[in-house]
């Protein structure tokens, strides 16, 4: 067993590794990350994850639900640290896996991967508490500066790769597996619902906010040909000549008015503390909102961007979807703007008290479901497909969301369920 494998085993048991090992690990990680561009290319299939926030036991649950590294190819969209009690173990484990399996896990930077933010929101204090000095915090912050700002997922399939999974509700097992746009699974790997692509007809522009457990949802799970209300199963699949789901851009926060093409992200100098302003800051901080164009947050800093901005950016950069994290959503994921952007949130029961579920998003490989793909003869490669669809909005890739609850609470250091009575005045 190599030292690295030993470190992985130790971290998996939620035990910190010695300071000297952290230093070495961070050094190796930096050497690896420095070679990555600002926008990392990732090939589908890939499983995309949102905020983790030091909820180590829930990260273990995520791996149980999504599969282990290196069997599953992972992309984490930042905010590994702060708020939870095990930022250190969570981040170091992800970093170890990155160094051990560099091609099977991609880490991009969140706004919490910064010196300033971690001093306020817990990671700094945690390092100090666990090591007695700030050295480990410093090593980690040096790694933060080298994390990529985004990732571009290529070759995601228009169709989902079929899986051999039972339905949570057996009465639905006859649901059509054809042309599924969205599939929703629970943490036991059972299918909760499937949403086929719209065959023309009205487009549902409402936000997707699946509530897999809510009774009202079950009515909508019948194999209707229209996307169920509120599901965002909205893209048309009409003339798609291949099985490509188009490229998917992953960033922690969102877009920036200074960035109109992915190449402009590539030109940024990222190896620094997250600045208070500029494109790099926006990519890690901005949020989509129901507005037209760009808006300034009422807080006085930070951008909001509307559906038109996303639509324009996706067309120009030949994207079918933007995937981001950064905002808590009760349902674990939320598709907006006719499914042109999705928020993925992977910290269940956030801060150990919100009671929300978490989600991860699986994108299949192009051609993985060839049997169902509506291909035409001699028109199979991606670039031809791009040409023919240039004018149209790209149909999104098939999306499989796995939702999961918080891991059973470990007694160590976790806040008790019942509040402790105190003589407050």
């Amino acid at each position: 067993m190599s030292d690295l494998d030993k470190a992985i085993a130790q971290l998996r048991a939620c035990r910190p590794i010695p300071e000297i090992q952290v230093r070495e690990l961070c050094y190796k990680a930096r050497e690896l990350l420095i070679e990555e561009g600002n926008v990392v290319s990732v090939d589908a299939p890939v499983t995309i994850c949102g905020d983790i926030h030091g909820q180590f036991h829930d990260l273990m649950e995520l791996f149980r639900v999504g599969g282990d590294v290196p069997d599953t190819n992972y992309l984490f969209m930042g905010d590994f640290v702060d708020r939870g009690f095990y930022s250190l173990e969570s981040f170091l484990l992800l970093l170890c896996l990155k160094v051990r399996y560099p091609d099977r896990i991609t880490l991009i930077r969140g706004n919490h991967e910064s010196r300033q933010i971690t001093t306020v929101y817990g990671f700094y204090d945690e390092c100090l508490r666990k090591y007695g000095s700030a050295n480990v915090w410093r090593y980690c912050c040096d790694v933060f500066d080298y994390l990529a700002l985004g990732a571009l997922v290529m070759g995601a399939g228009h169709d989902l790769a079929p899986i051999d999974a039972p339905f949570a509700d057996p009465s639905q097992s006859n649901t059509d597996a054809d042309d599924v746009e969205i599939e929703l699974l629970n943490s036991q790997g059972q299918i909760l619902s499937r949403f086929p692509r719209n065959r023309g007809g009205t487009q549902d522009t409402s936000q997707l906010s699946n509530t897999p457990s809510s009774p009202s949802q079950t009515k909508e799970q019948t194999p209707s040909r229209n996307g169920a209300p509120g599901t965002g199963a909205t893209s048309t699949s009409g003339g798609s000549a291949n099985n490509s789901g188009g490229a998917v851009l992953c960033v922690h926060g969102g877009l920036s008015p200074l960035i109109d093409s992915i190449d402009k992200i590539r030109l940024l100098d990222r190896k620094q503390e997250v600045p208070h302003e500029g494109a790099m800051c926006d990519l890690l901080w901005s949020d989509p909102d129901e507005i037209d164009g760009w808006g300034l947050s009422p807080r006085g800093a930070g951008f909001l961007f509307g559906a038109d901005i996303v639509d324009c950016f996706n067309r120009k950069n030949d994207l079918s979807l933007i995937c981001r994290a950064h905002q808590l959503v009760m349902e674990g994921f939320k598709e907006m703007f006719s499914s042109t952007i999705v928020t993925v949130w992977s910290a269940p029961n956030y801060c150990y008290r919100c009671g929300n579920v978490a989600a991860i998003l699986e994108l299949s490989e192009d051609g993985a479901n060839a049997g169902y793909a509506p291909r035409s003869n001699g028109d199979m490669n991606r670039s031809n497909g791009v040409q023919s669809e240039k004018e149209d909005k790209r149909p999104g890739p098939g999306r499989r969301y796995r939702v999961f609850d918080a891991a059973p609470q470990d007694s160590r250091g976790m806040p008790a369920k019942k509040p402790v009575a105190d003589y407050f005045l």
Partner: protein
Amino acid sequence: MAGTTGISTHTSPNGAWRITTRKLPILKADPIEALSNDIGIPIPEMIFGDNFVSVTHIPSQWTLEFNVRDALDRVSKTEQGMLQVAVAEEWKKERAHQEEVKQVVKPFDWSYSTDYCGTTHAEKGGEWRDAVGEKEVVRTDLLARQDPIQFFDAVDLYEDELADNGIALLNIKVRMMPERLLLLSRFFLRLDGVVIRIRDTRVYVEHAEKKVVRQYTAKEEEYDVVQEKLRGMRENAPEAFRDANKLAPMLRTIEDRTEVFEVS
């Protein structure tokens, strides 16, 4: 969400007063949208919309309730009193050339500062009146006694991380002892580099009396001033800045009023 899920309740030994709490997960997307449409401002990131705490006088069915909707409805829905984050000036200077993005979206008090003192349901009428004399106060002397706590709960109504510029939190603690009860609804705001704000509502009842005493205290201080004080006290600043109890004595009192409701 209806039903009794998440509800805890406790009645005073003399059968006159009852505390009820409800604790449930944060709201889902649809109820969030409905609430936002109802009160007309965006909803805090962590919204425990089904949670509440209430104190009921059982014989008269008089109830003082603390719920999320009414608390948020007291947040300013205009630019009035709107704070700016510490980096706002710098940020705007930097963006001055970007014509298209000068528009502030939906101005409102995004710090979610509320002066909410609870919602009164008085079926038999009556009103809150100003407290008179030294007897109508929250009796800290009696409440400081280590009487057995027969019921205790802490309930979050909402919390927002202010896009990592600090914290805004409204939570309620309640405890019932054999002879009296105390409820503390606390709004705590820390806007990093700008301001610390605490708005407390205390509700105090002697079980043997037919009287509810309610004290509202608003405190505030500039962030830098508090930071200086902490430095002088050799406190671990990041930790102290998360602890409203530690910060409260360092703030200036802006408003302090005590009212009484006599139930029948």
